[in-house]
């Protein structure tokens, strides 16, 4: 099995990261923003894994586990918040919910 070149891994990570980032920017629904954030986190995780396998180091995987647990915690809290928001405002539109006034 030939090793996947690092470039490919990094390009995949960039594409995933961009997709996630664009999702964060253009989505109005808070749930989708949260999902896009997950995609971005995973893009970073892919980059770490790829780099770790190229240099034969365990650090990449350690970082990925760290990111995974971070993402899990974030999703747990984020979803809980989303449920509260839905109950309270009957909406998840982030522009409607925004209370900052420039």
């Amino acid at each position, binding site marked *: 099995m030939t090793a996947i070149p690092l470039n490919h891994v990094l390009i995949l990570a960039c594409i995933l990261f961009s997709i996630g*980032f664009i999702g*964060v*920017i*253009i989505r109005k629904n808070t749930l989708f923003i949260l999902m896009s954030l997950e995609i971005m986190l995973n893009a970073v995780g892919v980059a770490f894994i790829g780099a770790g396998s190229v240099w034969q180091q365990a650090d990449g995987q350690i970082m990925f586990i760290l990111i995974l647990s971070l993402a899990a915690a974030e999703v747990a809290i984020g979803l809980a918040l989303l449920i509260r928001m839905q109950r309270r405002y009957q909406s998840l539109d*982030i*522009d409607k919910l*925004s*209370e*900052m*006034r*420039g």
Partner: protein
Amino acid sequence: MSLLAWIPFYPLISFLLLIALGRRLSWGLASTLSIGAIALSAISSGLVISQLASADSGIISVKLWSWFSLGSAEVNFSFYLDSLSAVMISVVSGVGLLIHAYAAAYMKNDENFSRFMAYMNLFIVAMLILVLADNLVLLYLGWEGVGLCSFLLIGFWYQEKENVLAARKAFIVTRVGDTAMAIGLFLLFKSLGELNIAAVNVSASSLWQIGDELPYWIALLLLGGAVGKSAQLPLQTWLPDAMAGPTPVSALIHAATMVTAGVYLIARMQGVFLLSPEVMSYVAWVGALTLLLAGVAALAQKDIKRVLAYSTMSQIGYMMLALGAGAWSAGVFHLMTHAFFKALLFLTAGSVILALHHQQDLFKMGGLLKKLPVESGLFIVGLICLMALPGTSGFFSKEAIIATLWSSPTAGPVLWWGAILGALLTSIYSCRLFFLAFLGASREHDKVHDLHHDHPTVLLRWPLFLLALLSLFGGLISLDFTEVFAVASSVDAAQEPAWLHPLAIATPFIGIAFAWFFFKSYRDNNGEALEMKPGGLNRFCGDGLGFDWLYHSLLVRPYCFLAAINRRDIIDQLIMFNGWYVRLWHDAMSASQNGSLRWYAAGIGLAVVCLAGVTTL
């Protein structure tokens, strides 16, 4: 502090109290305070002057504190009393006291009485500082202070637009002169490095020769200041309008004291003026032209106060003429006697105006001799002093001036004739005023208002009697200026024709005789309405010989036109460009802070992309 230092402080304290307490003070309290303060000043002045007589050097000076220093020159808050300023402080505080007492009665029913008395006190403070100042900066402080008080008091009844306009005009016109004077002072300081008056006079004569260019310009600029303040040609237009103020103000500021500040300035700076004979003759010519112009204008006035205003201008013209001719002490002597009789005339006119329910039109008066005998008598006293009939104070001072003119190197026969013609005009317009107001039968006022019904008699009458006494016998006061005016011009009487003095003495009588026949219709009027002849000449003279029109069309209208064109000021726009630029960025920045989280995220992303792009390139 010595007694001298206290003189201006009594009225200052009174001013502060009056302005702080305002209407809470009753009439009695406010008038006691203001009159008392001036009385204290007057008493102190008397005591200080008696000390001066025994002082060896002929000078009393006191330094209060140092104000600031300019290079090597120290500018101190210090007072300097010699015989010239002694005359001035006795006039200011003495005549000021009498006018204050009268004013307290005259203005009794005004609702802003304490504000009025406060301004009057402030005026006395400024005037005393002006005449006591030992350096030119302090003098300038007093100079501007009296200008301010004049402005405040002309516009005292500010609810009427005319008064406010008159106040503004007085302020702006005198400011023209003051600017010239300020430039003169800068020039003086630049060339001498000295601002102390005594030191300036000494070092000017040691540094410059007679006829040098620098003292010429300095003296000319100082003359500009004096011309503005003393209402001389060409800055005379403000004085007749200044009569919009209450009558005691006209008496105090626009007749007796403030308008003589210019005369004082020239007499004070004589060391500089003596170095430029050309400017001395300009001074004489300005005085002569003004006295003739004012005399002609006074012949065609309808308002009793405007007649007196023009006569003030012409009498100050005499003072200027005297100064220009080098007759310093005669000029200052006339300043003093004029303060007496002009204050008397104005205050008596004030009583007449009160008695006629604020009627100031001469053509609607008439027959007052029978109705107001006391006031008429006082007015006659004032007028004979003004006409300089022999024996009165005006006679002594005016003859002293006229006597020096013929053979003075800076005046001469032409100006002598001018002065004689002016005296003739003076007696003619005085008679016209007297005939119109006091002789004949009353034209409009069958009943005169009882003056003493709601004004305190004592205050309204006694100052007038005292002033009348001073006017009649003030000529006997002998002033000794030998130490102040070192160079007395020697009159070579042998060279002069013998008929000069008799003619000068006879002139007023010629004028009276002329007026007696010429103004017969005014004198013999039996109650029918009188009108001034509507001729163009009368209107021209009545408007002050067209100077107002001239200045209005030459200066005011073009200025207003330019101002209207430049409404959106060009220079302002240049400066506002900065504001516009800053505003642009402000708008851009604040648009970016819109509170939308997604925009922020996009901004961060864009920045990262840009940074990454920059680093990879």
